[in-house]
């Protein structure tokens, strides 16, 4: 992985915030020497190995690759469908109930699944810390110093613009 470069998501949406937070946490935890920035000459999120041209453009697969955790779960499917739609459309109020009633099945250790779910829920509900902390695993994870650093970095490079929810 020595020739890896990582360009962040230059967007201004909740989805961009979620994408950047996912890869920021994964790099802090698993590849701390891999810095990433929003580059104007890059079209969007991209992990690239300059040695062989290998590329990934999708945040969840980047997290899985960096953590070497390719397991799947119903929680991940929930993130890739329900949470993704809310991130893309901005209609977060509609999923608040689904989130409150959901029982996530995270293990004791940090996993790709936890990083991905946390980042999306954080992007959607960072203004509602009570909701975020109602999930014990999120509360503990958010308190980790490296996660705090990743949040700080993400917020410094991602400017979310308010927009009307899309139908």
């Amino acid at each position, binding site marked *: 992985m020595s020739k890896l470069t990582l360009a962040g998501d230059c967007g201004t949406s909740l989805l961009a915030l979620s994408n950047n937070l996912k890869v920021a946490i994964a790099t802090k935890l698993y590849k701390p020497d891999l810095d990433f920035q929003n580059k104007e000459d890059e079209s969007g999120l991209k992990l690239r*190995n300059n040695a062989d041209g*290998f590329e*990934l*453009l*999708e945040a*969840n*697969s*980047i997290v*899985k*690759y960096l953590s*070497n955790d*390719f397991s*799947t779960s119903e929680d991940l*499917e929930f993130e*890739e*469908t329900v949470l*993704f*739609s809310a991130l*893309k459309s901005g209609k977060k109020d509609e999923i608040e109930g689904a989130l409150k009633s959901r029982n996530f099945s995270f293990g004791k250790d940090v996993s790709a699944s936890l990083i991905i779910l946390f980042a999306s829920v954080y992007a959607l509900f960072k203004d509602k810390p009570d909701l975020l902390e109602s999930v014990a695993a999120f509360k503990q994870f958010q308190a980790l110093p490296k996660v705090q650093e990743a949040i700080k970095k993400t917020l410094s490079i991602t400017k979310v613009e308010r927009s009307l929810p899309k139908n």
Partner: protein
Amino acid sequence: MSDFIEKFSSISLNDIKNVPESDFPELTAEEKALASQAVTYSNRIEDADSISNLNDSLRNKTFIVGNKPSKADLLVFEKVFKVASKWSSVEDVSKHRHIIRWVDLIQNTLVNVPESEKLKVSLDIEVPREIK
């Protein structure tokens, strides 16, 4: 890889979830990541950007991860097949040309689709040249 295809017993759409990954060649970490990326795109089948990204990711690949088949080919096919069957306009075919080529390969190798239900690939349709 043609040896693998010859020995592989194509399976029905309904049995895709039951096929073990061990039935396929072992994947490297990079290939697992590409497989994961494609499955994620297919989970977002109603999102135009995700479908566009899936199409682009297949531009230079025979199968989802490159030149070897994997369980991801089955999982993505399961999600994409019905949607792809509705792409008939020149615009749709042009936009999704790499997915259509890949669906045609999978329906004729890994997945057993009844002849009447197969995606019909029109070789006569004139699509605009692709701008990369």
